[in-house]
């Protein structure tokens, strides 16, 4: 394959990466433009974009096994939680055999391997079941671990609240080479002043965004390669008709186990970079069922069985969170500041507009996410990316360049 072919095949990938890459400077430029208020209200801030990265990776890892083999991994939070807790405990020197100060990239990898091992253990009994029963047994396993971690005094003095990382920011990059590493975390991350002498300052948050983005990108390509390999084709064969896949001689049980382990691995990577950035972890934001549910929702919206779709679904989710949050601008603030007081105090059916904004908009992302989710399940069952692929008749990466060429002629 020539370089040109390669470039054409990955043109769409490159475009998406470019959008993500250019987002912080564009967003920054807009914030100091006359559209500052609108930017704050309608464009997600960098912290939300960081959540897109780690939650998007987690959702992709969920889709990797659930969307491609058809087995709903309802206990997927177990892997995310394992990655997150491992990183936090390792950073605090609480894991036997791993001295404090071991580079984050190494502990991240070890945590992910542990999660893959956990997936093998859970999968070895769970893959004897199918359908609802598989979903329930994986959920059961995850809940057992959740309850254990909530009461495990070794984690911290208050295990229900989880644990935090003391010390320096964790670094993403080449282990033991400071020059090739970036520390992450809103307060502990590397910040760059006067980048390359261009007079551009890059905040710690933005540096974290790029560092996490690199991990997500690498993970995405790894999973994408696997799905496009013969191994991935067997996964799809299992989804389409497991009996037939077995009949033509594939040891489907082993394939499912391996797919589960890989998906657990990347689920843990997502949890690990989340913990490194957030510098803390709690049972409820890592091991709990609702974390899996989050991935499930964004996967359906983005496109079940599309791998990249969940990232877009997560982007939509985080955009909704940002627009409806009151933390950093958001729609509610925009209306409150932009709309005259007389309008705000107008009564509609006994409720003032202001009260409506405060209760039905501010912080209500889950409501609208739920509504959008139900509408997708009913009317767009293939999700965003799945539907686009159906329309184009193939993956966007393959079909879009062909279409464009046709128009050019």
């Amino acid at each position, binding site marked *: 394959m020539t370089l040109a072919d390669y470039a054409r095949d990955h043109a769409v990938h490159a475009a998406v990466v470019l959008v993500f890459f250019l987002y912080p400077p564009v967003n920054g430029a807009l914030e100091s433009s006359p559209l500052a208020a609108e930017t704050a209200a309608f464009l997600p801030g960098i912290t939300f974009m960081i959540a897109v990265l780690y939650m998007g990776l987690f959702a992709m890892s969920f889709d990797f096994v659930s969307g491609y083999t058809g087995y*709903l991994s309802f206990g997927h939070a177990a892997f995310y939680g394992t990655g997150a807790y491992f990183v936090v405990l390792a950073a605090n020197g609480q894991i036997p055999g791993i001295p404090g100060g071991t580079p984050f990239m190494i502990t991240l990898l070890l945590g992910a391997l542990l999660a893959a091992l956990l997936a093998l253990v859970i999968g070895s*009994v*769970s893959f*004897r*079941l*199918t*359908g*609802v*029963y*598989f*979903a*329930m*047994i994986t*959920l*059961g*396993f995850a*809940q*057992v671990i959740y*309850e*254990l971690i*909530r*009461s495990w005094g070794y984690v911290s003095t208050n295990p229900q609240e989880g644990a935090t990382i003391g010390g320096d920011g964790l670094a993403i990059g080449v282990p033991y080479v400071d020059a090739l590493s970036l520390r992450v975390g809103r307060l502990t991350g590397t910040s760059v002043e006067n980048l390359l002498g261009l007079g551009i300052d890059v905040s710690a948050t933005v540096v974290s965004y790029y560092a996490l983005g690199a991990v997500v990108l690498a993970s995405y390509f790894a999973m994408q390669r696997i799905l496009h390999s013969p191994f991935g084709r067997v996964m799809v064969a299992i989804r389409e008709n497991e009996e037939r896949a077995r009949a033509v001689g594939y040891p489907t049980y082993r394939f499912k186990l391996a797919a589960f382990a890989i998906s657990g691995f990347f689920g843990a990577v997502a949890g690990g970079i989340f913990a490194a950035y957030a510098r803390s972890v709690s049972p409820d934001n890592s091991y709990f*069922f*609702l974390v899996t*549910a989050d991935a*499930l*929702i964004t996967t*359906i919206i983005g496109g079940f069985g599309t791998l990249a779709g969940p990232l877009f679904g997560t982007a939509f989710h985080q955009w909704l969170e940002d627009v409806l949050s009151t933390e950093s601008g958001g729609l509610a603030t925009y209306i409150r500041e932009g709309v005259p007081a007389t309008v705000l105090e107008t009564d509609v059916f006994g*409720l003032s507009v202001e*009260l409506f904004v405060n*209760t*039905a908009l501010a912080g*209500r992302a*889950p*409501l609208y*996410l*739920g*509504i959008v*989710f*139900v509408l997708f*399940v*009913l009317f767009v*069952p293939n999700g965003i990316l799945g539907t686009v692929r159906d329309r184009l008749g193939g993956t966007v990466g393959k079909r879009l360049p062909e279409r464009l060429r046709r128009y050019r002629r």
Partner: protein
Amino acid sequence: MSATALSLGVADPAPLLATGGAADGLRTAVRVLVEGLGKAAVYFTIAVGLTLVFGLMGVLNFAHGAVTMVGAYLGGLVLVLVVGSGTGTLATIGVFFAAMAIVFAVTTAAGSLIELKLIRPIYDRTPTYQILLTFGVSLIIEEVARIVLTLRGIQPDPQWQAPMGTAPDVLLGRTDFLGIAVRRLYLFEVLIGGVVLVAVWLFLTRTLYGLYIRAGSEDTEMVQALGIDVRRAFTVVFGVGTGLAAVGGVLLMWDPIWGPSVLLSIDVLLYAFVVVIIGGLGSFRGTVVAAGIVGIADSVTTWLFTTGVVTFSGLSEVTIFLLLVGMLIVRPQGLYGVEEVGGH
């Protein structure tokens, strides 16, 4: 108000710790058993609707817990509005039953509507989509509940204390039962659970719709081929299942361990799953037995922790989810389920 709730929530360990020979041991065992039955009644009530719906329709209703949560609030609302400081004990209990009836009627209607408008269009898809849809519905219900509560100035969590305060004094104390001090609330819960059990059992065995449901749980297509509109039976059963979920909520309203809070939604859902899977998805008898097993396991492990035999605070929850996992490993179809493991 909150003080009584607190003293109810934390079992006082003193009488449990007093070990004085075999008689005391026996007494403790009976107390743990009675408490287990009280918990079993709660588990049964929150799970039975789920099992009916799955049995007939093959739909695992993820909105079940959300409806229970709504039921707890609606029931609480009725009690808070009607019961005052001067209301007598019998009158309060009368209001409690009236609240159950009202909540059942309202939520049954709402459930039927959800089945007609949202679930019916997607029966021809894989079961995954029905799970997803009901899960989405539960998200919406929870958020609407949060909005309404916030507008009324009530904290969505922790529990709404006002309805707990309407519980008559009679239910708050302990009663002497064969020389054993048994918490009366547990006896009340056993009573209500028994009423629900008998009512559902009569519905299933003595009504034509009950007959359709039992036949349809075995073979939906055959029932259709006998000229019965199974879709209409689906609507009725989903409605009744929803109504039963809400009745469970009314029962939980006075229980300090549960009580009305938006978080009830997910808690109830997870526990209801455990019960119906251990019993066998779709089996009424299985749900009864499994609720008993989970209830007793819960009270025994709670007792082990409160007496200090085991210092691990999550023992009860871990045990319950381990029961789920263990059952799925050993016997995936559950105690009384039909053997067709996870057919899609």
